[in-house]
């Protein structure tokens, strides 16, 4: 039974009955309801329990400020923790429950504890206890954590999808109330491209519940005409259900549009939410204002509401949330709630106006309707448990500081309060600007910044002035973004109302001192009371940021929308400061909470980061490869056959390569094409070795250092002709190297004529390696690839399997090796031809792991594995790659001459042979000289690479060891986590074919 639903009025469709569940009970509402309006229509009082004291709480607002009606909505994978019922559109079969209260919100066991223990829980109580003994804290904390949190996270992955859109526009208008609508219409008529967004289900803002007359029709009818106009205008994009969550640098705003949340829990095949990132030439803030509640005793008992919320529920949803109303106000605007209540046919017990007797049009209107108005009084305390049953009112002095007479009791079930309005300036503060206080409107307005403000956010509340301001600001925004301002839209006829000045009252006095009065809540979500704030101040927490952090004021999911200004006012008063002296905390994004999935957009699962595949990827998949992620690349790691273990596969791959022929997909290595007459000189400067004499058709290994002398990348660079080189880089380093080359060329040596082009993706590279590699090559290549024609460290143009190719005779395995480069599109075909040709030699595909083993047997380093940003070429005993006689001091050279880099006891690369030759030393194991020493031990180095060698028949490792090169033959120890200590002997890092005969083979 919708006991509180009126028979007429409201923007709801009474023909569309929606059924929903709340805390296990089934209720009905209408299309157009929010969950909050539907609950109120059904007379549901208690919707939650408070966080600290477990006090029963009811719906208090109709907007983003709602502190109590915070629910778990939806089921299973599509459940959402913590949406506000006031901002949740009702859909059929919606399932919602309270987030606190056990066993349920009506009978919460914790309430007893809250009542008893509450007195011992002043702000910051947890800093003062649970300390002794030290060991107990984790147990205390376990209990504390049990009470933590509001809703529950879903437990399975999100079935919905999200995306992102980018916009550029001339004028962005945030807020679809009447100010924003008029600004949009007026800006758009100049031809400017306009976007307007609004957080609510319906455009219109406060005017939706207005009862004024505009151009001789009702304000709501007039509003509908304007909205219709807005939607017709082709250069206006209207984003409704779209919250601007943040204002970012250089006029960027982030908007989260809820595309399907109003339709149901999960709508298949659609985008649930979409983030719009808008760069605008001008941004107009038309975000309106939030009504402030007053702070009075027991102001959290269900039935205590904001005055304006009552008008909204009556006018927009035809819901009247009670029978007997007492309204307390400091201003004229709240009178409307009482008038609406009265007009809806229910009883207004009294309007308690905190101001000394005053007069205005709306006061007269209320009087004419026979409503009892009591001036110079305040509601000091509410009685009731799960619903208000009466209030105590008492006379107060003119400044609102003291109760000056005895209290009287008025029976009622609803208390509306209004302490005036707070402009919704949050976005204006996101870049760090502090809000400005205005005494005349008793509120903060946006500080000076690049935003334009109009309507209530700039302190204008009367409908006429809001419309005027909207039109003027829209015109100004268009003009500032470069459009010619035409004659502004006409101002409609509205009869101005005579108003009375509001009173600056935030915290209603009580007969008792604040610390002894009934709880006067400031921040409902965190149970922060006026007494708590005063206590924090007494203890020395005087900065408003300290007050916030000590009491948790404003830490809730409303981020202090409802309570912050009251909290600031209470702090100011208790410290005998003014409100502007006290200041505000800085508002930060998000304006209202924003779904993490929406922020991530489409960048989830396999789209989290781009994946790069080589031309042979499908082949690798078909041949059972296991893959390794290297940067963005997917590289074959090894190719297990017929249920082989990894180790078995590696042994097979290594032996096949050393004994016959193996093939590696090396396409991922970075390739940079370098051209220009000064290319050679450039290489001289960037590499540690000399490039002046590298002949055409020759290849050379080079090492690059950063200016600090530490190795940063390596690879082979080949001379195509005097002005043309091709450089290879590590797989992961390719982009960084290109940037590095560009940096030096563009900023230091622009006089050098040299050009760099990344050609990594243009070439497919396959390396055939092993004693039979030439035989395989000769089957698919008619060109001369003999030692004479193609000696070690040289390259030729050739045709391979009918495809023009470059063949480089370079070797990372120490075997006779050919790196065949063909255009990427033809890579797979050439690969297959080579596989066919190699069949008679049992050509064996191998992955990165076998490559690592084979190169390590040769003592070849992998930058990033054997080096870590603290290793010089000298540390690797690679003096051969340093040319001391270059005329130009190459990058990094000077740094080798510093005290620390000159030391001869630096960590140097060595080989290690495990004493137990079958034991593969763990990579990353730390090396000590004395295994018996106490902790902390003196470590002299660590294992960088370690494998079992199929060809050598024993395990071996590469390591960095202090003074390593002068320690060959010494025994070192590798203590393990399990207490085991491995023993190893330091040796040369070159284990296989130390003379390098195999790669030079005939």
């Amino acid at each position, binding site marked *: 039974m919708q006991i509180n639903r009126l028979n007429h009025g409201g923007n709801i469709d009474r023909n569309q009955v929606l059924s929903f569940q709340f805390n296990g009970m089934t209720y009905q509402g209408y299309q157009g309801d929010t969950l909050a309006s539907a609950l109120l229509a059904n007379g549901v009082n208690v919707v939650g329990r408070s966080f600290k004291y477990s006090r029963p709480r009811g719906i208090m607002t109709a907007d983003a400020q709602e502190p109590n009606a915070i629910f778990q909505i939806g089921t299973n994978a599509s459940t959402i923790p913590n949406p506000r019922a006031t901002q949740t559109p009702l859909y059929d079969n919606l399932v919602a429950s309270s987030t606190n209260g056990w066993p349920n919100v009506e009978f919460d066991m914790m309430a007893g504890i809250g009542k008893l223990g509450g007195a011992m829980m002043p702000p910051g109580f947890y800093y003062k206890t649970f300390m002794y003994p030290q060991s107990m804290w984790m147990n205390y904390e376990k209990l504390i954590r049990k009470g933590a949190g509001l809703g529950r996270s879903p437990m399975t992955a999100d079935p919905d999808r999200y995306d992102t859109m*980018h916009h550029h526009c001339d004028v962005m208008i945030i807020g679809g109330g009447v100010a924003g609508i008029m600004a949009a219409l007026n800006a758009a008529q100049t031809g400017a491209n306009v976007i307007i967004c609004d957080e609510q289900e319906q455009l219109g803002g406060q005017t939706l519940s207005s009862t004024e007359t505009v151009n001789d029709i009702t304000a709501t009818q007039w509003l509908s005409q304007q909205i219709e106009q807005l939607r017709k205008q082709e250069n206006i994009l209207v984003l409704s259900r779209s919250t601007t969550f943040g204002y*970012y*640098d*250089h*006029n*960027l705003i982030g908007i989260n549009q809820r595309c399907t949340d109003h339709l149901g829990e999960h709508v298949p095949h659609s985008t649930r939410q979409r983030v719009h990132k808008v*760069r605008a030439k001008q941004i107009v803030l038309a975000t309106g204002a939030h009504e402030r509640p007053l702070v009075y005793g027991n102001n959290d008992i269900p039935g205590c509401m904001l005055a304006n919320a009552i008008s909204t529920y009556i006018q927009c949803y035809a819901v009247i949330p009670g029978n007997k109303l007492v309204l307390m106000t400091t201003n004229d605007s709240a009178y409307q709630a009482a008038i609406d209540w009265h007009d809806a046919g229910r009883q207004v017990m009294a309007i308690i106006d905190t101001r000394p007797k005053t007069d205005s049009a709306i006061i007269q209107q209320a009087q004419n309707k026979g409503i009892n108005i009591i001036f110079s009084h305040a509601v000091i305390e509410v009685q009731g448990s799960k619903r208000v049953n009466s209030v105590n009112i008492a006379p107060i002095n003119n400044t609102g500081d003291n109760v000056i007479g005895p209290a009287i009791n008025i029976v009622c079930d609803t208390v509306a309060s209004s302490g005036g309005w707070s402009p919704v300036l949050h976005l204006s503060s996101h870049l*760090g*600007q*502090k809000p400005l206080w205005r005494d005349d409107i008793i509120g903060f307005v946006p*500080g*000076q*910044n690049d935003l334009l403000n109009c309507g209530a956010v700039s302190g204008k509340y009367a409908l006429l002035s809001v419309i005027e301001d909207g039109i003027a600001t829209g015109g100004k925004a268009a003009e500032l973004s470069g459009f010619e301002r035409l004659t502004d839209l006409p101002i409609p006829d509205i009869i101005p109302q005579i108003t009375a000045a509001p009173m600056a009252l935030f915290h209603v006095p009580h007969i008792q001192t604040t610390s002894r009065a009934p709880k006067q809540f400031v921040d409902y979500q965190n149970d922060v009371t006026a007494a708590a704030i005063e206590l924090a101040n007494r203890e020395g927490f005087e900065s408003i940021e300290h007050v916030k952090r000590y009491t948790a004021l404003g830490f809730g999911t409303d981020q202090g929308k409802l309570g912050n200004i009251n909290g600031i006012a209470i702090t100011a008063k208790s410290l005998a400061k003014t409100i502007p002296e006290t200041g505000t905390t800085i508002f930060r994004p998000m304006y209202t909470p924003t779904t993490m999935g929406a922020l991530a957009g489409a960048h989830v699962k396999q789209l989290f980061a781009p994946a790069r595949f080589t031309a042979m990827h499908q082949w690798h998949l078909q041949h059972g490869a296991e893959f390794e992620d290297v940067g963005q690349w997917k590289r074959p790691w090894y190719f297990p056959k017929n249920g082989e273990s990894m180790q078995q596969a590696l042994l097979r791959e290594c032996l096949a390569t050393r004994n016959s022929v193996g093939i590696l997909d090396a396409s991922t290595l970075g390739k940079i094409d370098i051209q220009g007459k000064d290319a050679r000189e450039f290489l001289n400067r960037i590499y540690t070795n000399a490039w002046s004499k590298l002949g055409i058709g020759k290849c050379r290994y080079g090492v690059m250092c950063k*200016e*600090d002398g530490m190795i940063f990348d390596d690879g082979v660079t080949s001379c195509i002709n005097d002005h043309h080189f091709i450089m290879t880089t590590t797989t992961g380093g390719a*982009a960084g190297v*290109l*940037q590095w080359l*560009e*940096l030096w060329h*563009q*900023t*230091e040596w*622009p006089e050098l004529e040299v050009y760099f082009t990344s050609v990594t993706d243009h070439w497919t590279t396959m390396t055939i390696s092993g004693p039979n590699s030439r035989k395989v090559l000769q089957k698919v290549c008619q060109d001369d690839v003999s030692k004479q024609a193609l000696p070690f460290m040289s390259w030729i143009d050739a045709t391979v399997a009918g495809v023009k190719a470059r063949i480089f005779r370079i070797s990372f395995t120490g075997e006779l090796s050919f790196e065949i480069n063909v255009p990427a599109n033809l890579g797979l075909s050439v690969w297959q031809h080579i596989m066919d040709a190699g069949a008679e030699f049992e050509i064996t595909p191998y992955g990165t792991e076998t490559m690592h083993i084979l190169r390590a047997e040769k003592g070849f380093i992998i930058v990033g594995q054997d080096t870590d940003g603290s290793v010089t070429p000298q540390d690797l005993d690679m003096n051969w790659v340093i040319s001391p006689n270059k005329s130009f*001091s190459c990058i990094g*050279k*000077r*740094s080798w*001459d*510093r*005290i620390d880099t000159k030391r001869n006891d630096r960590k140097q690369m060595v080989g290690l042979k495990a004493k137990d030759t079958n034991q593969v030393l763990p990579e990353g194991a730390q090396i000590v000289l004395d295994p018996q020493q106490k902790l902390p031990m003196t470590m002299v180095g660590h294992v960088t690479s370690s494998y079992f060698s199929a060809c050598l028949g024993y395990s071996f490792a590469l390591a960095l060891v202090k003074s390593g090169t002068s320690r060959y033959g010494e025994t070192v120890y590798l203590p393990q986590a399990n207490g085991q200590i491995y023993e190893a002997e330091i040796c040369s890092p070159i284990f296989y074919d130390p003379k390098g005969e195999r790669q030079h083979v005939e």
Partner: protein
Amino acid sequence: MLQIHCPYCQEYREEEEFSYAGQAHIERPSEPESLTDQEWAQYLFFRKNPRGLHHEMWYHIHGCKQFFNVCRHTVTYQIISSYKIGDRPELEQSKAVDKESINAN
């Protein structure tokens, strides 16, 4: 999120297209070997890191792949100018300083 004008592309583009490349106008010493360790360290590591106007380099990594200079305020993040490598910066201090006074806290 910054919107940066690339002086080569002559367009304002999103920050995500660019890569920050540190303090601008640091010249590599022409004869590194003649420097003391102290002087070399100054070149390598020590930076102005100002709270205010900063001349810095950006790299149009997902665009024209050009390095260029930007004069930007490190508190307001306002970009005063962007200019090619080799060009001298033009300062419009007053505009930026005004903004900082708003921001002072």
